[in-house]
């Protein structure tokens, strides 16, 4: 069933159209920065963007940082919201459930397909970012680069940490995917499910900026999203990375349980 879901997802032109659109913004930013030679002033703009003029190998990270706050979660929410509600709206859900596999397995298959989508999207953004970065900007003459802490990182260390950052951003998006999937079991409208997931993210991002909300800040789903920067400190600052992973794990677990409780007992009429 997982294979079927994966094939369905990646055969859809709109999946690839979403990924393509997602890459457009970092490419546009790279072209503009290159043409004007105006990187954001240090401390402003997305992380790592101020450093790409001197080291193009950092652009995959800047590209991730550009799409992470808004575009990537929108894409994930749209695809996740479509997972069950899309089938219901198209009238195909009951045919899917006729198969003996059961509803729990269908949910798990949908979640795995979503995880694959998130991973592919993040990897494509990073890969396009790498190609664009190496083409438009100077690469460091000697392999490797400088960590955020000012120590030098070998090419191997930089690659390893970049891979970890890609993995971390992927996991960070799983919470969004879980919200989308849960809402998708509540409604027959994919749009409503996607907007529901986005509403959660907007609320979370807003509360994070509010001092009065600081007691609940550690539990907000977007709280640790930018902690991938910590992987480029030396020594690596694991604290927020570990918390971010655990928090996403909790959200995915709880929302999947809620989706299961709702979906396995839901009357499916379409």
């Amino acid at each position: 069933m997982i294979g079927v879901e994966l094939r369905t997802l990646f055969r859809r032109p709109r999946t690839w159209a979403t990924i393509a659109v997602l890459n457009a913004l970092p490419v546009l930013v790279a072209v503009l920065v290159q043409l004007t030679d105006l990187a954001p002033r240090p401390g402003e703009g997305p992380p790592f963007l101020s450093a790409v003029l001197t080291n193009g190998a950092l652009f995959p990270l800047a590209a991730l940082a550009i799409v992470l706050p808004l575009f990537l979660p929108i894409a994930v929410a749209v695809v996740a919201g479509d997972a069950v509600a899309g089938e219901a709206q198209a009238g195909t859900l009951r045919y899917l459930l006729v198969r003996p596999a059961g509803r729990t397995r269908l949910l798990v298959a949908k979640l795995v397909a979503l995880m694959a989508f998130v991973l592919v999207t993040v990897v494509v953004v990073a890969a396009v970012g790498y190609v664009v970065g190496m083409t438009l900007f100077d690469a460091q003459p000697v392999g490797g680069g400088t960590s955020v802490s000012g120590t030098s990182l070998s090419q191997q260390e930089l690659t390893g940490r970049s891979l970890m950052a890609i993995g971390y951003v992927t996991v960070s998006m799983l919470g969004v995917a879980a919200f989308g999937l849960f809402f998708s079991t509540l409604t027959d409208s994919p749009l409503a499910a996607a907007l529901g997931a986005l509403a959660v993210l907007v609320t979370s991002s807003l509360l994070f900026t509010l001092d009065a909300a600081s007691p609940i800040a550690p539990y907000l789903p977007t709280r640790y999203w930018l902690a991938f920067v910590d992987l480029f400190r030396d020594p690596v600052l694991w604290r927020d990375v570990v918390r971010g992973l655990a928090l996403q794990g909790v959200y995915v677990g709880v929302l999947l349980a809620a989706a299961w409780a709702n979906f396995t007992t839901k009357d499916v009429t379409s």
Partner: protein
Amino acid sequence: MAARGRGAPARWAAVGLLVAVLVALPSVVAALPADDADVPAAELRAAVLASEDVGFSGYAVSAGGLALPVSDRLTAVADLFSDRTLMRVWWRGPEEHRVDVVSGAGEIGAHRNPGGTWTWDFEAGTATRGTPASLALPTPPDLLPAALGRRLLSEAADDELSRAGARRVAGRDALGLRVVPADAASSVGRVDVWVDPASGLPLQVEVFAEDADLPALDTRFLGLELAVPPADVVTFTPPPEATMLTAPDTEELIAQAEERAPDVRLPRELAGLPRRSFQGVPDAVGVYGRGVTLLAAAPVPGRLAGGLREALTASPDAVRDELGTRVAAGPLGLMLVEPAGGPAYVLTGTVTLDALADAARRLPGAAS
């Protein structure tokens, strides 16, 4: 479909239970009682003062609520006391340590060794070399609980100290040590220092203004490891692409300022606090008081006084009268005294506004 619907309450109950456990978990962990120990206050203070050489590495946060009315020349200092500062620290000793101020997209790391300090700023791409100075503006390392706790306890008299229970800080049981300053002029209500009894390291320091329930400054460790960190974490070699800078020589700046400073004789006592001398403090600056009650007085050139007056009067709480302009930011008082017939003075310290006014009257040439 009715058969399917029957399992719904049980499934939702299971999900509800899971959520309830997860939501309650942080509060349960936070409510775990800390072990108190019967250590007298004076003994605890001695342990804190002896903890300078204890090696550790950790992660600390300082949060200040002090909106300092300063001009844009001192924004770094103002931010330090009004913002949340996250710090990573590796401490091998008072002359060999590293403190990184961690921000969302960058970091500023201060690497100290006996020869001086390297300050690395990732976002600016600069590495700044500085030499140790006896007098310098406050920097993030000064706000580490360990450093601040030692400083605030260093001059506390035994009768100002008391014990204040125990609490969990950074996963450790910390014993509370309270300083209530005896000086009538003091604007500090109390200082609570929470100490790790085994190492003597202060784990949290809270400074309360008089009659305040919330601390004006709260700095604490979020994580702490009690082991001497390796030397290679502390040392720093500037990366080849960094812009190299040299920090301004504060000793020379102070000497220059002293030459330009108006020639005045400051009184031996201000606001009931006796004058004292510090190494590196020029004669033109009078420092009064002791422990957490300190007052500094200095004559300022007219040009500086104008900027300061503007900054002070911009504050809605500023008090203006014939003595000058004064304002309080939490326990910190700041006053610009502008006598008609003499140089202007700036008075600042952890004293009340009334004490500032009293001090202003006693300055040479001031209205009395």
